[in-house]
């Protein structure tokens, strides 16, 4: 069971919003005593996902939370956009696949950086991606 203790919401509409978002995520990681390496992985994953949010979803909101599962503390970041959604989710999760001009390791690469990764998408109704990085994960 995962419970959230601390929560905040940020609106992401332009590229300059990315740096403050990364800083906020880092602060959440520092607060629970996350190692530099796990912080770096979490922030990098955030950076990847927020780029998708801006590029494919046309912006949206990001929720940062401190979470606990009883044994460990962690940070959960949720990316919500109201964009066109992803047509073929299993294809998007394949290594090396991309529709944009990035390297195509966005989603699967990002998944490897975090402990929990969940993606919900509906054509025409947007995409929600949720990641959790545990302190000792």
């Amino acid at each position, binding site marked *: 069971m995962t419970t959230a203790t601390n929560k905040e919401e940020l609106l992401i509409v332009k590229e300059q919003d*990315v740096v403050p978002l990364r800083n906020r995520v880092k602060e959440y990681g520092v607060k629970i005593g996350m190692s530099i390496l796990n912080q770096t992985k979490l922030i990098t994953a955030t950076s990847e996902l927020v780029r998708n949010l801006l590029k494919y979803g046309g912006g949206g909101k990001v929720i940062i939370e401190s979470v606990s599962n009883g044994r460990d503390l962690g940070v959960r970041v949720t990316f919500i956009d109201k964009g066109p959604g992803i047509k073929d989710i299993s294809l998007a999760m394949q290594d090396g696949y991309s529709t944009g001009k*990035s390297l195509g*390791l966005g989603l699967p*690469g990002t998944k490897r950086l975090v402990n929990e990764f969940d993606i919900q998408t509906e054509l025409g109704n947007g995409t929600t991606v949720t990641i959790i990085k545990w302190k000792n994960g």
Partner: protein
Amino acid sequence: MERIPILKMGDFLLVTIQVDLYDQLAENLESDLINTINKNNSKGVLIDISAVSIIDSFMGRILGNIAVMSKIMDAQTVVVGMQPAVAITLVELGLSLNGVISALNVEKGMDLLRAKMYNGDNEEQTYDDSNE
């Protein structure tokens, strides 16, 4: 528009990234650097990323682009000072930055650039530690 300063030191260009990059800033750096290489006919570029706390796929791609583009313009690029956490994260992410030559610190990076300049491009990477 915010820009990252590029310093000219003889045949070399020196870039120290002190701020957190976002995509536009990285793209500006790419074009600025290529233009500066062209203007000064530079032979080497040293990019110090020791203050950079994260590199994601986009910034990784920019670094790779810079290395390849400068190579076409006959300049070597060396990336120095990558943080351990950044290196591990890049590997997990699946990004190996092919084509980018790296060195531990500015000093070793300079040595590497000099060795490459005077011994030609085909010289294998040298591990000269005589400066210590």
